[in-house]
């Protein structure tokens, strides 16, 4: 059964191309939204297996969204992404509950299947 993924990014061009990438990789993209608030709503509605989340959202920063979403048991696998070169320190990433950070220009070569699979599989 294909894994379901939610895309969260405030740029429409990126949402479109991310949707294409995830579809090609075999995921079902349940929705793409532009803000943290919309992300909470979409996760509540669709219960996706994974979330591809931009760290620079207009209403909240990606880390705080991650902490809110990953906190619940059975929550989605969250992969943070960004245009910017810097990455969060490992400790910060781990503490937030995110699965990984992948820069946007590395998404095509990343092993998204492994990253979005439930932990332990």
């Amino acid at each position, binding site marked *: 059964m294909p894994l379901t993924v939610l895309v969260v990014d405030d740029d429409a*061009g990126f949402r*479109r191309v991310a949707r294409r990438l995830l579809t090609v990789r075999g995921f079902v993209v349940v929705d793409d939204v532009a803000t943290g608030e919309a992300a909470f709503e979409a996760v509540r509605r669709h219960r996706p297996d994974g979330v591809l989340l931009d760290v620079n959202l207009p209403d909240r920063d990606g880390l705080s969204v991650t902490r809110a979403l990953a906190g619940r048991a059975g929550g989605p696998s969250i992969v943070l992404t960004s*245009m910017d070169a810097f990455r969060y320190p490992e400790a910060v990433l781990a503490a937030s509950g995110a699965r990984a950070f992948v820069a*946007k220009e590395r*998404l095509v070569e990343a092993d998204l299947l492994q990253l979005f699979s439930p932990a332990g599989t």
Partner: protein
Amino acid sequence: MTSAAQFLARILDGAPQPVWVVDEEGLIVFSNPAAVEALGYDDSSELYRRPSHDTVHYQRADGSPYPQDECPMLTPSRTGETVHGEDEWFTRRDGSMFPIAWWSAPIAVAGGTGAVLAFSDISERRAAEQAVRERDAAEIRAAESRAAQRRVVENSAALRRQVARDLHDGAQQRLVTVLISLQLAREEVEVDPVGAGRLLDDAAGQAQAAIDELRELASGLHPPVLAHRGLVEAVEDLAARAVLPVVVSGWLPRRLPEAVETNAYFFVAEALTNVVKHARAAHATVTIGVDDRTLSVEVRDDGIGGAGVDRSGSGLAGLADRVGALGGRMDVASPQGRGTTVRAEIPVGPARG
């Protein structure tokens, strides 16, 4: 004289404080050596029984005549009250004048009540006060100049931040999307050429959007037309793109230094932005001219007027800073209800060659 009287006499003789006594008619009946010297005479006999006002106090500081009935210094002999002041001027024997601080008290003389006067030359004190005023004025000017420079630096830092944000959110975002599209197209080109083709179309669209944004950004920083064709053509370009009709007149016989043309261009750009934002005008004109030493740029609109440099948000302070940074000056005429004219005059060197 008794020894007490002799002692008093010695006090007056030796004291560095000018003192004299006039009788009930205003004639000088005593003057001590300090008074004689202060007034540029050699001996008290030159002053004895001369009318004090007509001898040393007959003109004001600007040389105009000083009628005796307007003089406050002799009133004690009439009123019996002590008086004091700091704004009178005495004239020396050689005609030169000096400012004095003075005290005048009534004193009994043979014929009635006269006045005993003590006065001091306060030229040095006046000069010191003037120096303090000038130093304070210079400090205020220096503080204003520093504040203007700080605003220029802060504005340019704010502009850089804005440019960085525009680049990040705009063109960089577009290019990242182009990259991902190309990477995906590369993967799919053999197994799904049609799909790959759609990705490539998408990438082309994003690339074009990035190019347009970068062009716009560069134009905001330094428009190519300004570099290639000069100030007047760049301003005509601005005028053509403005939302209200703008007529540009004037011409430049030569290219001016780059900093001058750039600042003049942005002066016009910001002035026109102000017109659009605040003036509610129907038309605007821009006039450009240069003579041997000054570039003049004037932006005039037919709007509501009433603009002031101190009114925050009017945008005029930024214009003034920009012009001031080049050593120029800006004038604003903005009568209420009758339009606004902002005029910049920027020094340029004389034509070379």
